[in-house]
């Protein structure tokens, strides 16, 4: 902060920091055929970590398909599926510690499930019951964010506050390829870099913002190329390789913890379902494209590898699937009857203490409802 540091680098050399650029090939351990490749840039997850990743993906996938079914049955109002992005949802969350924070979007219900939240709480918003169904402080998960990119700034602020208070906390924020076009993403990356805030930005690049393809969203070589413009190191990973996502986020989080500041990670992946059940994806993408990505399924990929390496046998596999089925049953169960809804809640949380006007409006509504009961 010395005045001289303020001298705009007068015509003179600057360090070029090419090291901030992503690799030219997305980092990965597992290719679509389930073959393992060394990846120098990333530390290699231990076998038990790979098994854990697989288990969480199977459960997450089952949750996702169950939620889709619940929409069809009218138990849920809307659900944005993340099927196909399972490796991002699970790999990033398992890389976090208890004291870290997660800033998810509407797309990231599976990430929340992986973090340990109860399904009924995760789905409260989507069943139309209340805006946020869980206590953000319990698992250190911010409310799922709908206004795109706005959560990036919250993550930076929370992470900076943690450093301010001397806490060992890292914030992981999830955003999509489309959200990278919003001004808030830019401001968040910049604030994080200037403050060296312990934040990991994970862009789930699934190729579309609803119907808009990446080619209409950006002309950048890759989204990871945005990092250098803020002085932020960037990684580009195969978003369908849970091992790569897991290890990239873990390394980024450790660097943040060590005072290295933020990291930008682009995970290249694909959303297999429509944007939400309300969307018709056939209007903007071809069956061929979807098929192409089916061959890159993150679960098949890891499962094939684990089985081949005998880290997963039939029994273990069956056990995981049984666990997933039990979980799905729990989900159906917990959403079977409507939550009780108290109209008075409308007025309770607008301010810490309801204002006189809100108390009066609450009373008016109560009177109307009472009259309706008797009428």
């Amino acid at each position, binding site marked *: 902060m010395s005045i001289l540091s303020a001298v705009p680098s007068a015509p003179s050399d600057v360090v070029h920091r090419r090291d901030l650029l992503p690799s030219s090939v997305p980092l990965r351990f597992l290719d679509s055929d389930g073959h393992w490749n060394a990846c120098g840039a990333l530390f290699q997850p231990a076998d038990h970590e790979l098994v854990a990743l697989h288990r969480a993906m199977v459960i997450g996938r089952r949750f996702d398909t169950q939620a889709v079914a619940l929409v069809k049955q009218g138990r849920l*109002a*809307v659900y944005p599926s993340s099927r196909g992005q399972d490796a991002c949802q699970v790999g990033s969350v398992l890389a976090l510690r208890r004291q870290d924070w997660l800033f998810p979007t509407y797309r990231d219900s599976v990430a929340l499930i992986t973090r340990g939240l109860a399904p009924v709480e995760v789905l409260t*918003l*989507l*069943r*139309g*019951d*209340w*805006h946020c169904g869980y206590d953000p402080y319990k698992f250190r998960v911010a409310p799922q964010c*709908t*206004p*795109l990119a706005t959560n990036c700034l919250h993550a930076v602020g929370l992470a900076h506050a943690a450093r301010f208070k001397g806490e060992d906390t890292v914030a992981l924020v999830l955003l999509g390829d*489309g*959200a990278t*076009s*919003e*001004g*808030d993403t830019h401001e968040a990356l910049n604030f994080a870099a200037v403050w060296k805030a312990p934040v990991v930005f994970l862009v789930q690049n699934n190729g579309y*913002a*609803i*119907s*808009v393809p990446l080619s*209409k*969203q*950006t002309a950048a070589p890759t989204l990871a190329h945005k990092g250098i413009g803020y002085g932020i190191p960037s990684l580009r990973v195969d978003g369908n390789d849970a091992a790569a996502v897991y290890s990239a986020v873990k390394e980024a989080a450790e660097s943040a913890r060590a005072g290295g500041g933020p990291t930008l990670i682009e995970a290249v992946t694909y959303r297999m379902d429509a944007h939400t059940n*309300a*969307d018709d994806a056939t*209007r*903007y993408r071809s069956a061929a494209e979807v098929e192409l990505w089916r061959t890159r399924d993150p679960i098949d990929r890891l499962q094939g590898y684990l089985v081949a390496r005998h880290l997963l046998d039939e029994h273990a596999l069956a056990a995981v699937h049984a666990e997933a089925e039990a979980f799905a049953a729990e989900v159906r169960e917990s959403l079977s009857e*409507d939550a009780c*809804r108290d*109209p008075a*809640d*409308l*007025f309770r949380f*607008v301010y810490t203490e309801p*204002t006189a*006007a*809100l108390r009066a*409006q609450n009373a008016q*509504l109560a009177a*109307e*409802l009472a009259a*309706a009961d008797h009428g």
Partner: protein
Amino acid sequence: MAELLERTGLPAARPVTMAAALNQALSDSLAADDSMLILGEDVGTLGGVFRITDGLAAKFGDHRVVDTPLAESGIVGTAIGMAMNGLRPVVEMQFDAFAYPAFEQITSHLAKLHNRSRGAISLPIVIRIPYGGGIGGVEHHCDSSEVYYTATPGLRVVSPATPGDAYTLLRQAIESPDPVIFLEPKRRYWSSETVQLDRTGPAIDRAVVRRSGSDATLISYGGTLSTALEAATAAAEDGWDLGVIDLRSLSPFDDETVCAAVRRTGRAVVIHEASGFCGYGAEVVARVTEQCFHHLQAPILRVTGFDIPYAPPTLEEHHLPGVDRILDAVERLQWNDTVTPPRDRA
């Protein structure tokens, strides 16, 4: 008939939804004016999340119907630059709350550049915003944001209540030399009316009397107009004669039409689903009271949404003004005992 076709692009009266009417208005405007183009998120290939621009990209090309990058300030800001260079951009904001990132461009530039340049720059831009609730939408998808715009001098703000007027108002908005915030009551998108779409009609800044009545005047617009009409119908069954005014233009306000009706009835209720506190209804009450004070038998009442962030879907029915709440307000208009309020006669 040919002339009719030319005028409306439609053969004759037929049942049409508000969504279809808006789509037709955009299509006819694109056909009529080469300098007009549509900008927004998912407006091209997809036809918009509400399908209001359905088929337009295929028909007019994706240089006329543009899927922009995902950034609302960027959309409005570039639209301003385009208008400075002679184009007539019609911008679609995907939902009410997602127009907020563009707030600085709208308030500091869109509303002010004509004035700042002493008239040299004209910005004939329309910003279409699906607004309000009633569709079981989740947070950020149901805001009634009209007052943010009506409180900003330099903007015209209009909101149609019927399919026919949606067509007329949108054609008028696109032809207006002033920037127009065009608020579409999304819960009325699928409402249908048998009407012949016509670009001519009441001027863009005029209110219309949807139902004349002698006992009291209901004043509304957009999504709650139909509720006001229902209330008037229900009251009529009790021999009660309520008039209903559709404001159409929120800014400027049509004092003439509204005050004439209120002076006749001496009683009025303003209805909108936006929160009451500092909501649009406050201006209606304040200016009409000032102009009609000695004709008023009772204070003009407001039936509005509560002063809360928009309610979750399962509770929104309690938040939205309904027929009963409107009739309750009518009953509170301090009727003297020579006339009995509707319910007591039921």
